[in-house]
């Protein structure tokens, strides 16, 4: 039996291209469509700082909050010194716990990103919607 790999490869490409086209077309046409990039990643209403810069800054003059936006089990494994857990999945509860009576100008530093989840950007986005203006996301790089 000889397999005509060129024909098989050509057909595979056709199938993939059609599936991608149908997928994007159907997504555009539906009411509850999924955005290609999550909305909280697009809105850049926060500053970023590298973790090295942050550790230097923390030693000199620090005031404000350091939030770890990841779920509790991630926070338990490891977290930044002086940070508190603010899981973005339970935003309302932790917002009332930490920030209910805090000025919107208070510096807030947010940490917490995994390979697939941008908890930090989501929390920054949700806090910016609440009116907080002094938000800084701490990045790994």
């Amino acid at each position: 039996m000889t397999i005509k790999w060129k024909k098989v490869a050509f057909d595979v490409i056709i199938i993939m291209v059609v599936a991608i086209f149908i997928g994007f077309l159907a997504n555009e046409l539906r009411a509850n469509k999924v955005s290609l990039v999550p909305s909280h990643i697009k809105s850049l209403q926060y500053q970023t700082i590298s973790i090295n810069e942050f550790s230097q800054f923390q030693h000199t003059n620090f005031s404000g909050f350091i939030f770890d936006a990841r779920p509790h089990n991630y926070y338990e494994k490891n977290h930044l010194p002086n940070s508190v857990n603010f899981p973005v999945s339970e935003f309302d509860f932790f917002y009332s716990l930490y920030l209910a009576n805090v000025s919107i100008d208070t510096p807030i530093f947010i940490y917490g990103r995994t390979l697939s989840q941008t908890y930090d950007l989501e929390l920054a986005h949700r806090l910016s919607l609440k009116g907080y203006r002094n938000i800084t996301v701490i990045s790994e790089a």
Partner: protein
Amino acid sequence: MIKILKGTISKIKNIFFHRGISIFLLRIFLGLMFVYASIHKINNPVDFSQIIAKYEILPFWAINITAIILPWLELWIGILLIMGIFVRSCAIIQCGLLVVFILSIGFNIVRGLDFYCGCFPEDNIFSGTNYLHITLNIFWLLMAILLFMLERRRFSHRFLMLLFSKKTDV
């Protein structure tokens, strides 16, 4: 008597091991399975994207794109298999997808993560991050490989072969 028995056994053998019937059954089973698996993902793309993110395998920028394309790829492959079009190519893509699913679920078992896998609807017995799911995926992978080996043609129907090409590659 023995001759009649031998004849009957050989007839049954011919029916079950007939290439055409085997290909037909494999096509229909694998095709229907992929169509069934795709429907709930197409209906709930947002939920599906969150499930993909839980796997912690893809980078965050690829999550939504995968959630948009993957269900439609599954549906498209399923339909083509049922119709008997591009069978070998569909079988190859199916093998690739099943290998990815097996590795992803296995990776999560090793890491100790246990959550709804998203492959089938949540109330289905095949859903879950467990060894039964991996065993079933391996079984389906073997079926897809068998289909690829048995089917030598681009189209499973004679009229499609005539329609798409003058010189068939049977």
